[in-house]
């Protein structure tokens, strides 16, 4: 038998290994990334975005961040619409990752304005005090190499124009990174599709809350709003909040659903209770002024 025949043993072992390989690894090429997978609107990366992606790879962002949203309720609530195969056809390599030390980034594109990303990459802890993400401000010191990027685009077969390559002159790796992050998961109009509509009349449940109660909600503001609107609501990336005179209901709606084209993310995943608390905190702060 094969116990005495090493060549035969090697051949049989190869056969044993190849069965599962062919069925689960080779065969799927017949379906995956074919016409059936195609999604309208999914486009290749621009030169700037692709370079940002390469910086993301170079610095190992994938060691802490994933890029796939699973079709599970808490996950879709936290990150957005679940990921579809056709969204990744231009990803070489894939960057789905395997560990979420930081949050998933598959639906990050369009969630925050560019300024948020610049500030956050420069100093993550200035916006999220307890994060363990390292500072990446040094990316701004590295100028892009348009010639190299053009070569990359040629190898990938992605379309580009000479103006586009010329425009890379003077841009740095931080610009590329932000451009890439803003593209993530935004090729399909999932945000519009999942936009929250508030049905029925809104009624502030904390209308009778006293000042001490409301002051106790400060941590909600600090954790969710201060990074953009400033610790004193004086405004920074987002506008100043003191002096705005929205009704409770309108303020609630803005926080809950966000302003898609204004850079304000939706905070619906905090739940109505917390959003009402925030509404009251901001309103109270504004009227009080001295808090």
């Amino acid at each position, binding site marked *: 038998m094969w116990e*005495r025949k090493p060549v035969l043993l090697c051949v049989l072992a190869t056969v044993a290994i190849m069965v599962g390989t062919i069925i689960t690894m080779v065969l*799927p090429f017949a379906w995956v990334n074919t016409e059936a997978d195609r999604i309208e609107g999914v486009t290749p990366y621009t030169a700037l975005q692709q370079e940002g992606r390469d910086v993301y790879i170079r610095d190992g962002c994938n060691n802490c961040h994933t890029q796939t949203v699973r079709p599970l309720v*808490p996950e879709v609530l936290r990150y957005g619409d679940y990921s579809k195969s056709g*969204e990744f056809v231009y990803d070489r*390599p894939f960057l789905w990752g395997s560990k979420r030390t930081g949050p998933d980034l598959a639906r990050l594109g369009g969630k925050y304005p560019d300024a948020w990303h610049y500030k956050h990459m420069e100093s*993550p802890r200035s916006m999220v005090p307890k994060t363990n993400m390292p500072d990446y401000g040094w990316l701004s010191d590295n100028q892009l190499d348009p010639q*190299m990027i053009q070569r990359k685009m040629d190898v990938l077969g992605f379309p580009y124009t000479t103006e586009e390559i010329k425009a890379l002159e003077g841009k740095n790796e931080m610009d590329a990174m932000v451009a890439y992050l803003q593209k993530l998961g935004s090729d399909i109009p999932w945000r519009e599709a999942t936009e929250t509509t508030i049905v029925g009349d809104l009624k502030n449940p904390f209308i009778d809350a006293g000042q001490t109660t409301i002051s106790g909600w400060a941590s909600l503001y600090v954790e969710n709003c201060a990074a953009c609107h400033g610790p004193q609501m004086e405004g920074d990336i987002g506008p100043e909040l003191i002096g705005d005179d929205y009704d409770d209901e309108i303020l609630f709606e803005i926080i809950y659903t966000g302003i898609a084209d204004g850079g304000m993310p939706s905070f619906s995943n905090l739940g109505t209770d917390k959003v009402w608390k925030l509404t009251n905190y901001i309103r109270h702060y504004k009227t009080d002024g001295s808090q």
Partner: protein
Amino acid sequence: MENQTYNYAIVRSFVTWSIIWGLVAVLVGVIVSFQMVDPDLNFPPYLTFGRLRPIHTNAGIYGWGIGMIFATFLYMVQRLCKVPLWSDKLAKFQLWFFNATIIASAVTLLLGYTTSKEYHEMEWPIDVMVVILWVVFAINIIMTILKRKDEQMYISLWYMMAAIIAVAILYIVNAAAVPVSLFKSYSAYAGTNDANVEWWFGHNAVAMVLTAPFLAMFYYFLPKSTGVPIYSHRMSIIAFWSLIFMYLWTGAHHLLWTPVPDWIQTLAMGFSIMLIAPSWGSVFNGYLSMNGQWHQMRENYLVKFLILGITFYGLQTLQGPMQAIRTFSAFIHYTDWVPAHIHLGTMGWVSMICFASIYYLVPRIYGRELYSIPLANLHFWLILVGQLTWSISLWIAGVLQAGMWNAMNSDGSLTYTFMETMVEMYPYWWARAFGGMIYLAGLIVFIYNLYKTAKKGGAIAAQATVVEGRA
């Protein structure tokens, strides 16, 4: 005096270099574990978590793991075939090319030249080096087997051959890429296909690098250490064929709930559960070989390492299939539970077997008995406690974070923001770093013991290896 012709010098060199790379792996592991609790310990651009973590994993897998595979295979193949190596020159080349490859990997990864594919981060020029290295190794092993004097091939040789073939296929297919420059390439596959190929590679690297070769070592060094044969040759054969057949179907259990086609995920889940049988076939074979010999757990430190090693393998191969079930994966995947699982295998199973193999080889490659058995026992307890501290703290962390990620309010909203769940991890990450330090201390005791042995252990009779029975 057939013994004289065996090439033990090359085995000694590989042992030495794998220990050096193992120390690097653990040291970098400890550093990145501190970076996770304090971001100020990142020193950009080179010394950041994102660049150091692949150096930790690859130094562990390729430096320590494959280095030890080279060391033990080159030893076992000579003893089991009862002939010297086919080519000593090739083996010498392999040693230096191995070190060159590992150094080149570490330097390029530090510079940020990476493909980002886990456990295969090295860019294409290094892939070429790895392939050359593996072919050289394969030729020497297979040629030695072909000219063997003992016609019957022991089970360890089967595992060796299967691993050599499988690793070659896995590595080359996953490496396929189009170069842009010397240090940058783009994967030949895109998106979902790329993910499926990568985890077909990734999971079977676990099978064919971190399992099959270490089973080969276990099946060889356990009977050698206890002095009694393995319980059942037939059981080892059945386990062998079912293991190498079933493993290749399971890669997609790393991709449950992703856009990879559902049927691939389902197959991966099913085969993962079936894999418990061959895995535990080897575990039972090990345990049953100890029938009437359990007293050796007290008396023989080698046996302690081997039996704890196979026990960790058993736990690993129960926990793994559990995680491969869709519902459980939905809960636990992407949390700190997963690194805890991996380190149970690497720090527990793989390293325990490596340590046992080295201790067994010491008198043969140094010509002296081990300097201190009490130190070997101290080494054992330090790595055991270090490993358990490491894994248990992160299992708790994983369950905690998964629970918080999934917690929902009665109005259907999420109870915690991502940051609220992350800050809860800090105490456990500290505990993990502490566990890693204990493990590192164990490793240093081990190295000290070997250093003392090489320097001035008592010489033993040179014929000791000759009089032992058949392989």
